[in-house]
């Protein structure tokens, strides 16, 4: 931008008139706010893959911008505002903690569309979206229940929030279904990101007899610990972690935001965007199941794929009764499935899981 152009645009824009400004350069501008670095190899990495897919899909018709490692709170609010001021038409805010900031900024820019990941507050120009990772957990639980010989499955949690608890329950239900003796050992790391601590947690679980490790943290540390132990099964988390296939990593849950990001960008281009709540799973392709390797016996693999298919086509819901809560009270009656509200705020274990959720 030359100095003259700067002067000209300064004269032009006297307030927060952004929509007209955006149209003037003809491209649809899409902003992404990331909570971690693009190089985290997990959560943010996969969102950025989604961004790249948008660029690939629309080429010259779209311009994407992103800011990484944006702290939740006022920093995120500033970054979103800045993107909106700079003419973004659509902004994806990809962390739960961006919820209130997104709503605040959206109120100031009614012409800009916002998409907030994993939250529950919406507005006319704010949609929410999230993935039904628990569907993938059901398949992991099934394989885990079949593969464990010690009947101890280790689970590394980050923080005890509904997202993580839902995953534990889903995995446990399906592990118990195929193996009534299975037990879950759950260790909370109390951090989002500390690879060394994840490694420690995995080692501790293995030492305590776990021969399957499920993780709700994004580093490959547990994979490496399992590989060293030699006979421990793991699953990729967030990304495929194929570098540890075919064993210990026997399958994975992959966050695949690309289809959604492309569809929403298209909707803005076509002028058909409207506020909605999206919670997609395996069926819509938001939750990918990485290749199940040959380390899994053929019959178990077939069952897992059948389970995946039934979840994908909607004929089976991972939370289907009869199910009881940990304290023995009724959760779901025979044939009843959990509604999304219950799932979203899930803060209890199902019957059979030992230990308490830290409060």
């Amino acid at each position: 931008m030359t100095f003259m152009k700067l002067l000209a645009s300064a004269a032009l824009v006297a307030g927060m008139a952004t929509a007209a400004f955006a149209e003037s350069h003809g491209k649809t501008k899409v902003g992404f706010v990331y909570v971690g670095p693009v190089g985290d190899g997990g959560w943010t990495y996969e969102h950025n893959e989604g961004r790249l897919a948008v660029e690939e899909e629309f080429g010259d018709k779209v311009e994407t911008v992103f800011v990484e490692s944006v702290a939740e709170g006022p920093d995120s609010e500033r970054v979103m505002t800045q993107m909106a001021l700079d003419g973004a038409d659509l902004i994806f805010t990809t962390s739960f903690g961006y919820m209130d900031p997104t709503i605040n900024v959206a109120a100031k820019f009614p012409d800009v569309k916002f998409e907030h990941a994993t939250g529950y507050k919406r507005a006319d120009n704010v949609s929410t979206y999230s993935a039904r990772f628990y569907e993938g957990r059901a398949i992991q639980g099934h394989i885990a229940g079949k593969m464990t010989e010690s009947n101890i499955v280790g689970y590394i949690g980050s923080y005890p929030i509904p997202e993580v608890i839902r995953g534990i329950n889903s995995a446990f239900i399906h592990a118990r279904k195929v193996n009534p003796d299975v037990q879950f050992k759950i260790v909370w790391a109390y951090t989002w990101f500390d690879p060394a601590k994840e490694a420690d947690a995995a080692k501790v679980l293995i030492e305590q007899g776990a021969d399957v490790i499920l993780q709700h943290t994004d580093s490959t540390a547990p994979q490496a610990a399992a590989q060293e132990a030699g006979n421990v099964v793991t699953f990729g988390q967030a990304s495929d972690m194929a570098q540890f296939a075919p064993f210990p990593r026997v399958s994975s849950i992959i966050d695949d935001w690309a289809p959604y990001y492309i569809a929403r960008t298209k909707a803005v281009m076509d002028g058909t965007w409207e506020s909605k709540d999206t919670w997609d799973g395996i069926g819509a392709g938001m939750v990918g199941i990485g290749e199940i390797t040959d380390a899994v016996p053929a019959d178990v693999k077939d069952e897992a794929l059948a389970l995946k298919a039934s979840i994908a086509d909607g004929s089976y819901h991972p939370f289907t009764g009869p199910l009881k809560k940990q304290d023995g009270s009724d959760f779901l009656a025979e044939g009843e499935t959990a509604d999304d509200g219950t799932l979203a705020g899930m803060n209890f274990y199902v019957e059979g899981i030992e230990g308490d959720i830290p409060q």
Partner: protein
Amino acid sequence: MMDLSAINPLLFIAGFFVAATPLIFAAIGELVVERTGVLNLGVEGMMIMGAICGFATAVETGSPLLGFAAAALGGAALSLLFAFLTQVMLANQVASGLALTLFGLGFSALLGQSYVGIKPPRLGDIDFGPLADIPVVGPILLSHDIIVYLGIALVVAVWATLKFTRAGLVLRAVGENHDAAHALGFKVKRIRTLAIMFGGACAGVGGAYISLIRVPQWTEGMTAGVGWIALALVVFASWRPFRVLLGAYLFGGLVQLQLNLQGVGVAIPVEYLAMSPYVITIVVLVVLSRDSNRAPGSLGRIFHASH
């Protein structure tokens, strides 16, 4: 439900060694630096530089040991920046160290952009043959990779050097009173610069232990605060090498212990278990601080030969 027998004491104690090794390297390096009277708060930055230099080199060459060598070089190279600032430009050490950490975190992330999601070559454990089958001793002491033993050897070497050699004497003299050391004809700045580079190299190896063995993978900021713990350990150790070892095992062990207790379902709230390593470190420090824990006399002070 709570079943402590699920904790295997041998594996539990063996785990200390692995968890403590990055801390030992970083802390013993910083100990030497501080013994010469220099406070370098940039340990975290030098560790992460070592982590990426070691990782990249190991991946490119296929040799983890070359990786560790590169990590030492990377850490030392970054520490030269600190040495230049504090020894030549006479800048404040606390601020320079913090700036070094900021710079190291950023620079390592830039270097590491193409190394995300790669698995590095593995460094195996040393084969002690039949010795490894000795009950108790075998699984606890003889089941590790070479870097673990190098770390312990380094502590012994630093202790012996400080205590018995002329070099150690000079080093301590510089740290205790740089003006007097200067008057005796010692090259204060040269000695300090060498110590700073040694500290950088050690921190680099410690960082690479995380990226190459402990985790092993490369992600931005993956040292996640270990460098700060290492700094605290030096103070904890009252600037004595063997106490560094003790402190590192204590700290590494406490982290292991809290995870183990969670695994067996001990009914203490997790958040209190998670904060216990830090609280216990404070308590131990209070107990230890009854005997002399005097810092090197010139620690953190700027030296300039004015006459």
